[in-house]
């Protein structure tokens, strides 16, 4: 995979920059540890050799397209990331003709940290049912045709606990939360100009960095992604205190799948389930 994928991405990037199709290619390069990848912004065709692709390329680069509005930009996306492209297209946040999508059939990414690289496949890749990008202009790798049925064993495990245990679990996580908002900043679906958590009038969430407020932040953050989360799990990866945010997102993903038969970001013209309705919805309310 590695060398070949890397070469294909470099060649494409070079071509796009030389022709002037795009003014920037957002991909991955080797980070300061010499071990793991980091996002790279290439503007000059002479610099395409900085680009790499390996199994530490877990960042969802689609988030960066939001900063490139009005500028033709190419972006390297994996299967999960590509769903973010659709999400942002359907929510009219980016324009299709401004984005050149270099899709990569995802070989799965490993658990890594700065200067640390394991062989352990990330959880998100175990859950992933979309290794092949759903949208692309150029594809690297052979499309995966068969994906296993969804599996929510992690959610079930949490649900097996008592309510008290679950409350205690999340309280403990909230105690650790620093409210650094890295989860929000990394999320391609979080692009509000003014986030509710920073609103002061009314002050929805107090500025106290304490369990009560932190829990409210985490609950609403997850809920605002309900039916919109594309399962790239970047929020959990970037969390400096390892809060298992995927559990919240996956719980919602499972519910959205069972209640509304919906998966976010599978095409560019779908409507998220919470901004629409069916008159005959059967949701166990007042029936």
């Amino acid at each position, binding site marked *: 995979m590695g060398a070949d994928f890397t070469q294909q991405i470099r060649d494409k990037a070079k071509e796009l920059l030389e022709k002037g199709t795009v003014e920037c290619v957002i991909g991955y390069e080797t980070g300061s540890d010499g071990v793991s990848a980091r996002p790279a912004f290439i503007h000059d065709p002479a610099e395409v050799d900085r680009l790499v692709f390996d199994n530490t390329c877990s960042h969802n680069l689609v988030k960066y397209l939001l900063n490139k509005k009005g500028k033709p930009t190419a972006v390297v996306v994996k299967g999960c990331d590509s769903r973010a492209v659709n999400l942002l297209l359907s929510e009219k946040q980016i324009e299709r003709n401004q984005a050149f999508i270099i899709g990569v059939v995802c070989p799965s990414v490993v658990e890594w940290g700065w200067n640390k690289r394991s062989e352990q496949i990330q959880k998100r890749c175990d859950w992933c049912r979309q290794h092949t990008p759903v949208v692309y202009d150029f594809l690297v790798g052979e499309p995966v045709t068969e994906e296993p049925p969804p599996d929510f064993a992690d*959610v079930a495990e*949490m*649900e097996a606990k008592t*309510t*008290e*245990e*679950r*409350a*205690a*679990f*999340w*309280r403990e996580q909230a105690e650790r939360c620093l409210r650094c908002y890295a989860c929000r900043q990394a999320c391609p679906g979080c692009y509000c100009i003014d986030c*509710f958590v920073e609103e002061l009038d009314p002050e*929805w969430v107090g500025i106290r960095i304490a*369990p*009560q*407020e932190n*829990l*409210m932040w985490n*609950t*609403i953050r*997850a*809920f605002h992604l*309900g*039916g919109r989360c594309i399962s790239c799990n970047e929020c959990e990866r970037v969390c400096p205190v390892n809060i298992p945010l995927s*559990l*919240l997102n996956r*719980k*919602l993903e499972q*519910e*959205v799948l069972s*209640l*509304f038969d919906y998966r976010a970001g599978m095409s560019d013209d779908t409507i998220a*389930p*919470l*901004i629409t*309705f*069916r*008159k005959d*919805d059967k*949701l*166990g*309310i*007042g029936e």
Partner: protein
Amino acid sequence: MSADNEPLIIGFLCNWCSYAGADMAGTSRQAYPANIRIMRVPCSGRVDPLLIVKCFEEGADAVLVAGCHPGDCHYSEGNYYSRRRFALLRELLDFMGIEKERFRIEWVSASEGKRFAKIVSDFTEDATKLGSRKVS
């Protein structure tokens, strides 16, 4: 929960139906527990999930959202949105340790005073059984 072990319930009632229903319960002397603190809202669709989570954050033991029956929304479709929204929120809250039984969504029309009283009575009873929530 207050000192005397009475659950505190926050109720968001739609101005066009449930609020009038509560009023009807009052004028027709249908007694219901005083545990509920009523907020009048223009539509159940106006109830932002933030309000629900905020209530629980601040220590409410249970929250009720009541709106018009499907098809009867004063604004045509507000309650259809709230139905989806709260069906999902209820699941998330339960997952995070707030029992489903603490968060109810009900359709109550302006003429259903008796029903409103019964809903609040039942809800209060359920909330009492569940006991107080710990927040800090």
